[in-house]
């Protein structure tokens, strides 16, 4: 290995310039620190990279994954069980890791949820209500070490950064009509009103209300109206174009780092960004207790060292885990000995769907009119909002008609008795396009953590630098499969009440399949908590082992809740940034003494 060229020292190096990297860079430059952000992918901006004459391309962005990391650059290996050989993910399936400035914030759907107050106390809350015997023996769920009340101001801050469109369900303990009555108390309403709902989404809301539920519009980072955020950055109104998920937004109407933070950040003289540069290692001093900076490789294959006093690791979940493992930060998780923390409590999501077919000419849904976070949802079956006692599982999820468009390569559903090709298939496509529904991620179920679901380094497969790939060992457990049957059945009842003449329940079934898309909500692997024996970072996302390293993102979630993760990981980023500014900078060192 060559000796890396050394760059001048910085106060802070940020690894990965997505949502959390942008938030931390902005907060820490505001505190007067000199910050460099190092991003593996390219710089991306609205006018250049996703203008309106280019973005509406299902083949390019959804099918060929243009905005995503290419597996050839790096990937993971996968197996279901510990006694199997893992094989590389050669093309994306179950999830699609982001790439480039803005990260997943560029091509997300912008569903901007808060987790339930009880989600942050998953273990203690469930044991208190149902008893410890109710949890499966190998389930390793934990409390987060931070409470909803502590995070509320930071959720609020992120929503007001984004201009999130929604209807509040609970303001300071007062339940509000038309909102989610199960949500934790919020200090004030959403910054902008909820988006308008297209026909099928509206019908779902009506049917859910008839069934006795409390439907509400999904909180959306696709804005219902123009909005100027507290940083002075202006977003435009969403045009319901139906090209949101997988796509960049040409309207400046989807909240992303590009539309909320970066225009302010790039003007600061104490901020610098390096794109197309991949951090390969966090460097530690001889004690192994202090990070000295990072090593990265630029696009001309030159290796550099960037010294820094403070390291913010804000890459995608699993790349956070990989960098910790490769850099020797913390102890790698060993599921057999049940020791170590890096790679532990790795989770994904338990998604299912119901496709429904309605009478032709009586129902014209125009499915192409939608936004990424459109939809009417119910939360009756999420978290611990219902009594799990009779059902024999824990966890849950929101469900709703959340269909993001009618892009025809993926959204031409045909009734189940239809052949896959030929004249009858063609006729069925013609007959059903306007009167069939395919929500996609209709049931957004949680996935709790287990002793044998984890990440470590693969013994065989390497990336293009010769570093071991991360190996994912993951399968569904009975708890999640039971949860999914219960939720999917409840979900289908709503479509029946809407007047569907035929439905296909697409239950999530085991074994976990790496080719079958769910969401990109991988969580855990470097989880937060109150005990260094069972968590990688403390309640402020500070590494227990290397106190000048903070690890952002969903890698910190001890288990995944039944919501999209971005609202929570962004709130955690603000929470961590506040701790760095108000506590750490005054006295650099561990913020929690174990």
């Amino acid at each position, binding site marked *: 290995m060559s000796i890396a*060229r050394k*760059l001048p020292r910085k106060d802070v190096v940020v690894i990965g310039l997505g949502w959390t990297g942008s938030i931390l860079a902005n907060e820490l430059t505001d505190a007067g620190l000199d910050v460099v952000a190092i991003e593996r*992918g390219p*710089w991306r*901006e609205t006018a250049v990279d996703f203008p309106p004459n*280019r973005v*509406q*391309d*299902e*083949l*390019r962005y959804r*099918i*060929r994954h*243009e905005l995503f990391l*290419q*597996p*050839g*650059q790096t990937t993971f290996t*996968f197996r*279901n069980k510990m006694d*199997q*050989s893992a*094989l*590389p993910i*050669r*093309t994306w*399936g179950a999830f699609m890791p982001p790439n480039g400035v803005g990260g997943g914030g560029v091509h997300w759907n912008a569903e901007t949820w808060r987790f339930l107050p009880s989600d942050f106390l998953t273990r203690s809350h469930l044991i208190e209500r149902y008893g410890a015997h109710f949890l499966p023996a190998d389930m390793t769920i934990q409390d987060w070490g931070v409470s909803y009340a502590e995070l509320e101001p930071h959720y609020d801050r992120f929503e007001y950064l984004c201009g999130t469109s929604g209807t509040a369900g609970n303001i300071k303990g007062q339940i509000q009509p038309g909102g989610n009555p199960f949500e934790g108390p919020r200090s004030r309403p959403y910054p902008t009103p909820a988006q308008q709902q297209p*026909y099928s989404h509206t019908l779902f809301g009506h049917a859910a209300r008839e069934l006795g539920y409390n439907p509400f519009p999904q909180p959306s980072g696709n804005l219902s109206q123009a909005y100027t955020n507290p940083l002075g950055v202006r977003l435009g109104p969403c*045009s*319901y*174009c139906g090209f949101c998920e997988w796509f960049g937004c040409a*309207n400046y109407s989807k909240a992303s780092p590009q539309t909320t933070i970066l225009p302010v950040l*790039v003007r600061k*003289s104490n901020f*610098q960004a390096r*794109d*197309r*540069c*991949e951090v390969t290692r966090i460097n530690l001093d001889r004690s192994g207790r202090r990070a000295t900076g990072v090593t990265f490789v*630029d*696009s001309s*294959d*030159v290796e550099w060292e960037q010294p820094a006093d403070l390291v913010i690791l804000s890459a995608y979940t699993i790349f956070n885990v990989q960098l910790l493992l490769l850099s020797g930060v913390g102890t790698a998780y060993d599921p057999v000995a049940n020791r170590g923390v890096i790679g532990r409590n790795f989770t994904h999501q338990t998604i299912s769907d119901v496709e429904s077919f309605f009478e032709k000419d009586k129902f*014209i849904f*125009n499915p192409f009119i939608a936004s990424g976070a459109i939809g009417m949802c119910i939360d009756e079956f999420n978290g611990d909002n219902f009594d799990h006692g009779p059902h024999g599982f824990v966890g849950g999820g929101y469900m709703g008609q959340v269909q993001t468009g009618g892009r*025809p*390569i993926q959204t031409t559903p045909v009734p189940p008795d239809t052949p896959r*090709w*030929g*004249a009858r298939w*063609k006729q069925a496509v*013609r007959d059903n*396009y306007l009167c069939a529904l395919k929500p996609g991620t209709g049931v957004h179920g949680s996935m709790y953590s287990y002793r044998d679901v984890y990440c470590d380094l693969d013994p065989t497969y*390497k990336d293009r*630098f010769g570093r071991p790939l991360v190996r994912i060992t993951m399968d569904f457990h009975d708890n999640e499969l039971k949860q999914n049957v219960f939720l999917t059945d409840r979900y289908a009842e709503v479509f029946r009440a809407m007047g569907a003449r035929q439905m296909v329940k697409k239950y999530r079934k085991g*074994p*976990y*399949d*790496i*080719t079958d898309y769910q969401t990109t909500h991988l969580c855990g692997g470097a989880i937060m908590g109150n005990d260094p024996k069972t968590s990688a970072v403390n309640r402020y996302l500070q590494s227990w082992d290397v106190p000048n390293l903070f690890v952002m993102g969903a890698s910190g979630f001890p288990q995944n809740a039944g919501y999209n993760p971005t609202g929570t990981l962004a709130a955690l980023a603000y929470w961590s940034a506040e701790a760095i500014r108000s506590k750490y900078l005054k006295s650099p060192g561990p913020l929690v003494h174990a």
Partner: protein
Amino acid sequence: MIDKLRRRDLLTGTAAVVIGQSLARASVISTDTGEPAKAGPWQYFTPAEGAQVEALVDRIIPPDAQTPGGKGAGCAVFIDRQLAGPFGRHEGWYTLPPFVKGIKQQGPQSSKNPAQLYRSALAALERYCRGQPGGKSLAELPAEKLDEILQALESSTLQLQGDEGKTFFEALLTDTQEGFFADPIYGGNRDMCAWKMIGFPGARYDYRDWVGRHNERYPHPPVSIAGRADWTPKRR
């Protein structure tokens, strides 16, 4: 504004200062898949392969009174252009060995890329057809015979070389339907025929005036990323 600031503060790709030592294989991998298809002869297929694929795609999506079939819609042209481009070469895929056959839920593990798959499967299929009574080329077979062949590939009763029949069938089905529904800039969905068939308005970008109009048929014809032919003055 951004450009000016970026010149100052964004260090793109190559780090500054001095030339460092090389670390091999580090460059960023990207595949620009957004190249519009060019008119003209086959770019990947031989003329014989092109005729075979046209025959097959026209059975996967048969023509009818209102809408062209796979051939008329340009699905074979779409596949040809895709195979000639990054997709055909598996660009962006993880292609390092060892290649081991895994279980279904571990995903595709073949070292063969789509361009190679079409070449070998079409050759094997042609050999199979020539070996049947009558010895006709696949492209000369009547519709019913082609349907039988597709059904046999789909059900794995016709395996071709190295059990490739089913893999080829799945690729052909996916690629044909993608070509039918993708934007016409890629060579299929000619004249937006597939979008007209289902009522998809294509690359219109603003439905604010329609989001509240429930259960009404959207009245406007589709638009491609490249616009509409009837918006563009005819060139001599």
